[in-house]
C-alpha cells in the first residue's frame, strides 16, 4: 500500500530548532490540532449548515439561500456575524454558572474526539502521520467523550429555569443515554474482526482483510447509523429540539454566541459520528476494494475519507427531509427493545463465525 507522507521537509527547520522529541510530542500535535480545528472542522461545520439548508431546499422543491454570494456561499459568514452580534441573554432566575457552562460541555468533547480519528495511514519512521495521536484504546476514548456531551444538554435544559427547556433536557438525556449502549455494542462487532481498539489499527485491519467492514457487519453498521442519528439529536430522533412541540427544547433560552455553540456542537457531533462510522465501517482512508483496484490509490487517503464523511452527512440531511419524528417513548422502545438485542445477536454471530473459520481455515 502506498503511504502518502506529509510534506515533512517544510517542518525541518522547526524540528531542528526544537529538537526531535519535543517536536513529535508537543509541537506537531499542537499544529495539527490548530489546523484541524480552525481550518478543518469549523469551516466544515459552517458550510454544513449552508449545505443542509440548500439540500433541504432542493428536496422541498425550492432553492435554499442564494442571495448572499453566488449560490449562497457567503451565507455562513453572514450567519456567524449575526450570531456574534446578537444580544446574549441570561434569564434572571437561571443558574448562572451552569447556564454558561452548558454550551461548552456540548462543543468541547465533540472537537476533542477528532484528535483520535485517523485521516490517513500511519507514518513509518520519522514522518508526520495524518492523525493527531494514535491512542491504543481509541474506540473507548470516542465513546467516553461522546457521553460527556450529554451533560451539556441536561445542564443546559435544567439551568434555563423554563419548564419547556427542562422537559427538552430530560428527554434528550434519556434518549442519548439509551442510545449509547447500542452504539457501543454495534462497534464491538468490527472490533472482534480487527482485534484492536485503536482506530488506526482498525483501518489497517480492513486494509489487510481487503474489504471494508461494512460488508461482513452490515447489521452493526445499520445499528451504529441509527444510534448515531439518535445521539446527535437529529431527525427522526430530534424530539428534544422539536420545534413544533417544545418551541426549541433545551436551547430555548439561549441566544447569540451561546446558541451558536449549541448549534456548533450538534453539527460537530454529526461529523464525529460520520467520521467514526467511516473509520470503523467504511475503511477510513482506504479506497474501495483496496486490493482489487490498486489504481485508486493514486487519490490521497484524506480525499477518500472526506468523500465518505460527506456521504454520511448527506444521508443525515436526507433523513431530516424525509422522515417524521419518533415519539419519545417509541424512541426508547426502539433503542432498548430492538437495537440492543440486535447488536448482541450480531456480536454472537460474529464470534461464532470467527470461531468456525478459525477451526476450518
Amino acid at each position, binding site marked *: 500500500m502506498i503511504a502518502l507522507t506529509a510534506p515533512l521537509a517544510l517542518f525541518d527547520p522547526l524540528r531542528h530548532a526544537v529538537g526531535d522529541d519535543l517536536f513529535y510530542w508537543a509541537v506537531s500535535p499542537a499544529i495539527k490540532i490548530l489546523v484541524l480545528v480552525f481550518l478543518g472542522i469549523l469551516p466544515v461545520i459552517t458550510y454544513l449548515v449552508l449545505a443542509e439548508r440548500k439540500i*433541504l431546499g432542493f*428536496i*422541498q*422543491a*425550492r432553492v435554499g439561500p442564494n442571495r448572499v454570494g453566488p449560490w449562497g456561499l457567503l451565507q455562513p459568514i453572514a450567519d456567524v456575524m449575526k450570531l456574534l452580534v446578537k444580544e446574549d441573554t441570561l434569564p434572571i432566575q437561571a443558574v448562572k454558572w451552569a447556564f454558561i457552562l452548558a454550551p461548552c460541555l456540548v462543543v468541547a468533547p465533540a472537537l476533542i474526539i477528532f484528535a483520535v480519528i485517523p485521516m490517513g495511514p500511519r507514518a513509518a519512521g520519522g514522518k508526520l502521520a495524518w492523525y493527531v495521536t494514535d491512542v491504543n484504546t481509541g474506540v473507548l476514548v470516542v465513546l467516553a467523550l461522546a457521553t460527556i456531551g450529554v451533560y451539556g444538554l441536561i445542564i443546559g435544559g435544567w439551568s434555563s429555569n423554563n*419548564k*419547556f427547556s427542562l*422537559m427538552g433536557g430530560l*428527554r434528550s438525556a434519556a434518549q442519548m443515554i439509551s442510545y449509547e449502549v447500542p452504539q457501543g455494542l454495534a462497534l464491538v462487532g468490527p472490533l472482534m474482526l480487527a482485534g484492536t481498539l485503536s482506530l488506526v489499527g482498525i483501518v489497517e485491519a480492513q486494509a489487510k482483510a481487503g474489504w471494508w467492514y461494512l460488508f461482513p457487519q452490515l447489521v452493526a453498521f445499520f445499528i451504529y447509523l441509527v444510534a448515531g442519528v439518535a445521539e446527535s439529536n437529529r*431527525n*427522526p430522533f*430530534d*424530539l428534544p429540539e*422539536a*420545534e*413544533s*412541540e417544545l*418551541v426549541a427544547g433545551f436551547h430555548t433560552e439561549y441566544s447569540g454566541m451561546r446558541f451558536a455553540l449549541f448549534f456548533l456542537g450538534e453539527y460537530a457531533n454529526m461529523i464525529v459520528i460520520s467520521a467514526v462510522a467511516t473509520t470503523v465501517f467504511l475503511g477510513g482512508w482506504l479506497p474501495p476494494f483496496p486490493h482489487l483496484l490498486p489504481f485508486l490509490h493514486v487519490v490521497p487517503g484524506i480525499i477518500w475519507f472526506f468523500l465518505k464523511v460527506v456521504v454520511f452527512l448527506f444521508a443525515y440531511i436526507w433523513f*431530516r*427531509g*424525509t*422522515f*417524521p*419524528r*419518533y*415519539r*419519545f*417513548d*417509541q424512541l426508547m422502545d426502539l433503542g432498548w427493545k430492538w437495537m440492543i438485542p440486535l447488536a448482541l445477536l450480531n456480536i454472537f454471530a460474529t464470534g461464532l463465525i470467527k470461531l468456525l473459520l478459525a477451526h476450518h481455515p
Partner: protein
Amino acid sequence: MSQPIVDPRTLPDDDRLFAPEEEMELNFGPQHPSTHGVLRLKLKVDGERILDCYPIIGYLHRGTEKLFELHPFFQNVPHTDRMDYVAAATNNLAYVGAVEKLVGLVVPPRARYIRTILAELQRISSHLLWLATHAIDIGAMTPFFYCFRERELILDLFEQYCGARLTLNCMRPGGLPHDLPVGWTDRCRTFCEAFPPRVDEYEGLLTDNRIWKKRTVGIGVLAPEVAIDYGITGPMLRGSGIDWDLRKVAPYEAYGEVEFDVPLGKNGDTYDRYLVRMEEMRQANRIVLQCLEKLPEGPVMAKRPRVLKSAKESEVYHGIEGPKGEIGFYIVGDGTPQPYRCHVRAPSFINLQVVPEMSKGALIADLVAIVGTTDIVLGEVDR
C-alpha cells in the same frame, strides 16, 4: 357521555390523582408553533403524560356575528370569508345558501355547478393545508412544501376567477358575481388531471411509513357514540365509522347530480382520519372533473331585487358540508335588509370540544397530533 369534563380547579384536594405538588401546569400556547392559531391549552402534566387539558379560546374574537347585523345581506359575504380563512368558499356558500332560503331566491343551474366546483376546489385546498401542517407538526418537513406547491395552483385558479386568493368573496345571494373567465375550465381540468399523482406522492411519503404509523395509529381515538354525543361532524365523524355527509344526506347545489364516494374510517384514530381526508381529496377531484363536463350554459345570477329584504319574523338554518365539518348559518330576519341575528355553527368550535377527551392520558407529543387531526382554524372557533 362517557366521562364528564370537570374543571380540575374545582376538584377537592383528596379527589386528585396526584398531589398538587407533583403535577406540573403547562401552558400550551397561545403563541405556539403548532396550535394553528391562538389556541391556549392549559395542561396538567405528570412528566410527559397529560392528566388534564383545558382549552381556553377567545384570542381571535372579532365580533363577526355582531358585524353581520349591521349591513345588508350581500355586504356580509366578505365577513364570512374571514371566519374559516383557510376555506373561504365554503363559508360563502353556506351563508349565501342561507340567505337564498330566507329570501326565497332560486339559483340558476350554471351558478350551482360553478359553486360546486369552487367548493370542491376549496375542499382540496383546505385538506392540503391540513396535511401540510399536520405533517410538519409530527416532524415530516417535506409534505408541507409539496402541499403548498399544489395549493398555489388552486389559489391561482381562484384568483383568475374572482380576483383574490384567500378571502375570496366569490359568491352572492342568488348566484355568482361574474362568469368564469375564458380558458378557466381548461386550466381547471389540467390541474385536476395532474392532481391524483401528487396525492400518491404524499401517500408514498406518509401512509406506509412506519414512523408515521407509530405516531398516528391508536392516537386520539374517538368512539362513535362520543362523537355523536358531542355533535362532531366532518372527517372526524367519518373517521370513526359513521356515514354522515351532508352532501349525500341533504344534497345542495349540484351534489345530487354527480357521483362520488364518501370514505369512512374504522377505528376513529388519527391514522384513519388521515386516510379519510386523503381519499376525500381524490373524491373532490372527481367531483370537479364531473362538474366541468356537465357545466350547463346560462346566466349566473338569479333575477333578484336590488335590495334583498327578508320577510318579517322569518328564520332559517342552512348547513353545508365544509372541509372541517358542517358549517351552518342560522339567520333571523325582521323585514329589513339587515339580518336581525346571524349565528354561525362553526365546525371547529364544536370539534374542539373533544380535544380534552381524546388527550387524557396521552403524551404531549400526542397532543400535537390530536390538535392537528381535529383540524381547527381559530378564525372559526372564535369568530
